[in-house]
């Protein structure tokens, strides 16, 4: 369970997030939407303790994130899986090594790694690319690798910060399907997105922020165009519901 209570974060004069109150239960699938600069990534980084809040508290699985000591932070992060829009993969490692890396971090035995990585690569449909480097595969495939790495250690929460932002709509939908699959296995999914089509079609909970403030939180919500003053080209191109 994740609970933000009156959370604020400023970068100098810039507002990151302001007075956020939100609660996400285990197993939920939540969209975090809002125009760029709204504070979505800040929201995510606070949860991962990549940055610290100025005010308020973030409770996660029963503990206060702010009270974690530096030694406890890596374990905290490992309980979550993270997928970014870009710069997700280590460029000098192969697909296999990138995914294996998540298990090396938690010091799983070599043989376990060798056995489990192919299974997860199979699950996300990139077994054929196992020995390629990130630059040798498509962006969509890279994102699958990132998802494979994120779910490798069975995280409680999967955080995806605009995972479909750089993808064409079809590939975007494939990634969505994967995330839904992960969610169905019981993992909480928090997905930051810009894509109106995806949000509208998925019929999930939508949390919208703007200028750092939470402006809407509805179950089965839709993407409100007036909350976004920066539509991405991908949205403009594709209209109507896409098959899931």
């Amino acid at each position, binding site marked *: 369970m994740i609970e933000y209570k009156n959370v604020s974060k400023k970068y100098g004069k810039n507002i990151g997030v302001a007075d956020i109150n939100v609660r996400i239960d285990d197993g939920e699938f939540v969209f975090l939407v809002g125009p760029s600069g709204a504070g979505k990534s800040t929201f995510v980084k606070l949860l991962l303790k990549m940055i610290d809040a100025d005010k308020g508290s973030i409770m996660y699985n029963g503990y206060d994130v702010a009270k974690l000591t530096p030694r406890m932070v890596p374990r905290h992060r490992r309980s979550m899986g993270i997928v970014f829009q870009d710069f997700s993969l280590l460029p000098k490692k192969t697909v296999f090594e990138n995914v294996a*890396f998540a298990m090396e971090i938690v010091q799983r035995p*070599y043989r376990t790694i060798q056995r489990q990585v192919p299974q997860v690569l199979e699950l996300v449909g990139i077994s054929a690319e196992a020995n390629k480097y990130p630059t040798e595969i498509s962006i969509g495939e890279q994102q699958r690798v990132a998802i494979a790495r994120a779910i490798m250690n069975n995280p409680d929460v999967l955080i995806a910060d605009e995972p479909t932002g750089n993808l064409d709509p079809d590939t975007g939908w494939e990634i969505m399907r994967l995330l839904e699959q992960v969610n169905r296995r019981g993992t909480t999914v928090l997905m930051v997105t810009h894509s109106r089509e995806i949000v509208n079609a998925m019929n999930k909970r939508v949390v919208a922020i703007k200028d750092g403030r939470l402006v809407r939180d509805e179950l089965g919500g839709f993407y409100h165009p007036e909350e976004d003053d920066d539509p991405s080209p991908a949205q403009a191109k594709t209209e109507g519901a896409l098959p899931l």
Partner: protein
Amino acid sequence: MTSLKATLRQAFSQINRNKMMTTASLFSITAILLVLGIFFVVIVNINSMSQDIKRDFDQIQVNLYDSVTAEQSADMMNQINAMQGVADVAYQTRETALENWKEKWGENADLLDRMPTNPLPNAILINLTDIAYAKTIVAAVSKINGIENISYSQDTVDKLLRLTRMIQIVSLVVIIVLVAISITVVSNTIKLTVLAREREIVIMRYIGATNWFIRGPFLLEGIVIGVIAAVISAAAIGFLYYYAVGHLGVDFALLMPTGFVPLPFLIENLFIIFVALGVSIGACGSIISMRRFLGR
């Protein structure tokens, strides 16, 4: 065990894949070590020289013309023995002198064999009761006939001091220039490495790697590069030294009161110093270059 194995595997795959950076770091560290190695060689030889000079300090050597007979020299010795401040007098044949010289030169003695004739004179060696008598005795002895020249420590010390100072200044200038170049190269390499790896470090932190896990392979990479640089530069210095001693030997013979410091002794110490330095430079370079990216 597993994590050490994983760390090792990572370090070597990183070295393999960051060939450019690795080569650049390797060159920088090797360059620094070579400079320090030259410095080390010069200093060690100068030290060994000055120690030998001190040992000879209370001795005056009276070099005789080849024409001086044994009788004449015995007479001279009696004369000298009577002087105030003389502890004892000894005769040294030119053959003995060469033997002694060879002994001092140790393993490089064969260089002396290359000389066509023995250039050394017969000599009378005077040991003093006190170094303070040196000047008066030299003055008195120089009035005796049949003496080619007199060498006593003050001369040698002065000559050597001048030579030593010159060598030190030259090597210092060379070192300053080369160190400045090396430092520039190393800092630029580190900068490049950090920029190239900033993303990797951030990603690793995001997915929950501990700081030591992140540092581990970088650190090991730095250490491995340092050790390789140490081996390369120790070998290079060893080769250069061997070569230089072989070539300078005969010409230097008349300038140097003692032989060069033997190669095995030099290399052994040099290697230990190089490994320690190489490892420190490599490890520090890695840690420093990552510091600002490992916030907590």
